[in-house]
């Protein structure tokens, strides 16, 4: 067991390193963008004096390494600082939106993960049947439509007829039932987007094992195909499946800005895009760190889980 613990600690240390590199890359890229917060805030009415005054007021007249260092020391003490554009504490700004983002991601995952596992197992079980082909083609068509377009189609079909709202206005004091109802369409859109990937991986991972001697053995013993797939193939195929689920969960948290825009859902993605275009670096950095942490943690969890499901992996370096 301590091997797993060692692995977790080692990966966490690497994760911190990853976060550091991410913050450097994001800071550098945002610095390279033309213009800065002062000029974008003032927009077209910017005059050299007002820009200079605003820059001084916001502390943007400091050289970049100094600002980065100030930011870094702040974060290491748990202080994300204040948004320069809105002058609100970043932690407050992010709290609700992070909650929204996680809620939507979990909602979509709660539908998508079981759905794709079931579809994947069935497709592997009845491989090359009509069901397999239709499920495959359907899932592939769903991911080959751009997200926003998928969303428009769902709105046209399900919102214009009045079944679900096209716009998700959520507030913290809504009941869970209401929340689930108003966010159904974005969750469904995201489900369609991620299901194909997970379903295909499930199917492929299982089929990959079907030629193994031990499966052949089970078949010769006269076990039912369903039992073979569930009891013999699936446990050994779990590692790649868990990995692809982790990737998709990370995507649900970090990559859904387009769906947020279409459904007017106040998540982190929209805030990040807005902050990039306003050059509000501290906010961009904070969100990038959240996204990167989500990615790192999910990957770590996936690795730990796959190691646990398949002890042989522990021996590998």
């Amino acid at each position, binding site marked *: 067991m301590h091997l797993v613990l060692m692995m977790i600690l080692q990966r966490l240390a690497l994760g911190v390193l990853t976060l550091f590199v991410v913050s450097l890359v994001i800071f550098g890229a945002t610095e390279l963008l033309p213009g800065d917060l002062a000029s974008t805030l003032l927009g077209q009415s910017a005059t050299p004096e007002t820009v200079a005054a605003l820059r001084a007021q916001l502390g943007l007249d400091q050289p970049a390494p100094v600002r980065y260092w100030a930011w870094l020391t702040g974060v290491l003490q748990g202080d994300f600082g204040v948004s320069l554009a809105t002058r609100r504490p970043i932690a407050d700004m992010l709290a609700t939106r992070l909650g929204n983002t996680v809620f939507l991601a979990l909602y979509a995952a709660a539908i998508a993960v079981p759905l794709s596992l079931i579809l994947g197992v069935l497709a592997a079980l009845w491989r090359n049947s009509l069901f397999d082909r239709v499920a*495959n083609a359907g899932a592939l068509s769903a991911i*080959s439509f751009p997200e*926003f377009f998928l969303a428009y189609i769902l709105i*046209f079909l399900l919102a214009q007829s009045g079944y679900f709202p096209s716009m998700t206005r959520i507030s913290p004091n809504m009941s869970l039932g209401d929340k689930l109802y108003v966010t159904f369409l974005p969750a469904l859109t995201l489900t369609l987007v991620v299901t194909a990937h997970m379903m295909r991986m499930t199917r492929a991972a299982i089929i990959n094992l079907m030629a193994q001697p031990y499966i052949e053995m089970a078949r010769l013993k006269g076990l039912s195909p369903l039992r073979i797939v569930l009891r013999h193939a699936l446990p050994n195929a779990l590692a790649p499946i868990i990995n692809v689920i982790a990737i998709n969960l990370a995507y649900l948290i970090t*990559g859904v800005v387009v769906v947020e825009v279409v459904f007017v859902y106040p998540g982190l*993605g929209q805030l990040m895009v807005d902050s990039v275009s306003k050059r509000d670096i501290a906010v961009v950095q904070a969100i990038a760190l959240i*996204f*990167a942490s989500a990615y790192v943690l999910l990957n770590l969890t996936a690795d730990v889980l796959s190691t646990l499901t398949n002890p042989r992996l522990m021996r590998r370096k």
Partner: protein
Amino acid sequence: MGVVVFLIAFVAVSIPLSWAFRAALARLLPRDMAYAAGTMPLTAAFGLMVVGLYVFVALFAPLLAPFPERAVVGSQFQPWDSTHWLGTDRLGRDMLSRLIYGARNTVGIAFATTALAFLVGSLLGIWAALRGGWLDQGLSRFVDALMAIPSLIFSLLLLTIFGTSVLTLILVIAAVDATRVYRIARSVAQGVVVMDYVEAARLRGEGTWYLIRREILPNALAPLVAEFGLRFCFVFLTISSLSFLGLGIQPPTADWGSMVRDNATLITFGDVTPLLPAGAIALLTVAVNFIVDWQLYRASGLKERI
């Protein structure tokens, strides 16, 4: 409902077509390939047929398109008629012609992007696996960090910095994709580099390039090909999402991703125009992945009846 009827009709037509296509391939191809062609599933035949059709359309776009790519030949959103088979777009350009030219631009750009991403990503990945040590650690950690940044937002940043010409678009999407490819290539290659034959070649004193090219790459190809199929199709989606956020391909170049974006609002009123480019992307995605599935299936060693 019309869509469902259309889909059923589409499947009904494509099954005999695919069957005929497979039969024709089995007849026409040289013997060693004919066997594979003859035994491939209908889905794979369908995939090959569609990809062939797309390549044909892309190559001969100027001959096939009834109107020029960018010419305004009518008024806004004309209905389908005998002159403009699929109507006109929001500027009054012929929809069919733009779809045809779109095949050339979209497929071309997607192919260039994916090829570049795979060239860079898989070579670096294999190299890292082969050399190990600090090089591997450094590269892998850096790639990890890049992958931890949401790809769409990262592309947005890069495109805003470097501009939005077709070349930068290809380079940026390829760079972002290459990180994903790197990871897969590295993990696959890690399994290969410990094999005896690689060790043997190493002891023979073969160079790195030789090892990558002759020993590792051939044995790591199957999963890479599968990934190629998916990545190839995702390039369309990336371009489409980027144009949703105000970047993407330069107008007036026709490309399906941007065409979906340009006409997307119409779906709000039940108009099918934006379904055309979206359908073109979907069809290609399905086709490419049918072929990939077939190849993976052959690689898995399952000898069942199909």
